[in-house]
């Protein structure tokens, strides 16, 4: 099962609330969480797909930064 890791700027609870329905609405996203204590506000997704583009676009459409966190 692919695990996808992104850097975001999802900092506050209100940001989380906006993102929640977006991620919950993507069928290929099985589980997700955001570590808001980390400087990179890391979004971690357990997914059925490794289609990064689709996820990045959905979050960027809400006005947030979202990019793959490189190794």
């Amino acid at each position: 099962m692919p695990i996808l890791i992104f850097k975001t700027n999802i900092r506050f609870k209100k940001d989380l609330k906006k993102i929640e329905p977006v991620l919950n609405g993507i069928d290929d996203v099985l589980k997700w969480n955001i570590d808001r204590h980390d400087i990179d506000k890391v979004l971690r997704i357990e997914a059925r797909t490794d289609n990064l583009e689709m996820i990045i676009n959905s979050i960027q459409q809400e006005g947030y930064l979202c990019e793959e966190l490189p190794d």
Partner: protein
Amino acid sequence: MRTRDENKQQSIREKALEMIVQKGLDGFSMQKLAKAAGVSPATFYIYYKDKEDLIMQLWLEETKRMTEETLKNFDPAMSFREGLKVQWINRARYCMKNPEKMGFLEQLRHSALWGKSFKLVGDDFKKVMSQFVANAIKNKELVKVPVEVYWSIAFAPLYNLVKFHISGGSVGGNKFTFSEKIMMETLELVLKALKP
């Protein structure tokens, strides 16, 4: 897509334990830990959801190991004297073999995560201990006191001696070496204190 690597995970575990023992639970960030373990922050997140998830997983593994060690050759039906002796020997052996892990559990014991962590571990260990204590009270071998008082008298003296030994110094900077003889002498005093 990313793949798991058992060596990387092991390295993260070891570094995390080291950092927690040295700097406390609040003294490290994912970024610092990843750097120390020689992995990227992104790699860290393959294995763990966040810092709390890492601490909880470490705690679970270690508690399992510690409780297994503590229950070796132990039977809750033993007399109080015999049962406590077996536990002291087991607990001392575990701590002397794993001083850094004892430090880790100690850090957690005094944090807000302690309560949470107990919900994750099964209550087998707790059941065995409760049964042992209940038997001892019934057989008039043990005074009935709140569990915190019982623990503080029954086990804290042992852990304190071990800590003196590990840190290399005791009260007033004296040198202290833990030995079986000292352990047994202390156990006698503890047994005396806990008599009804």
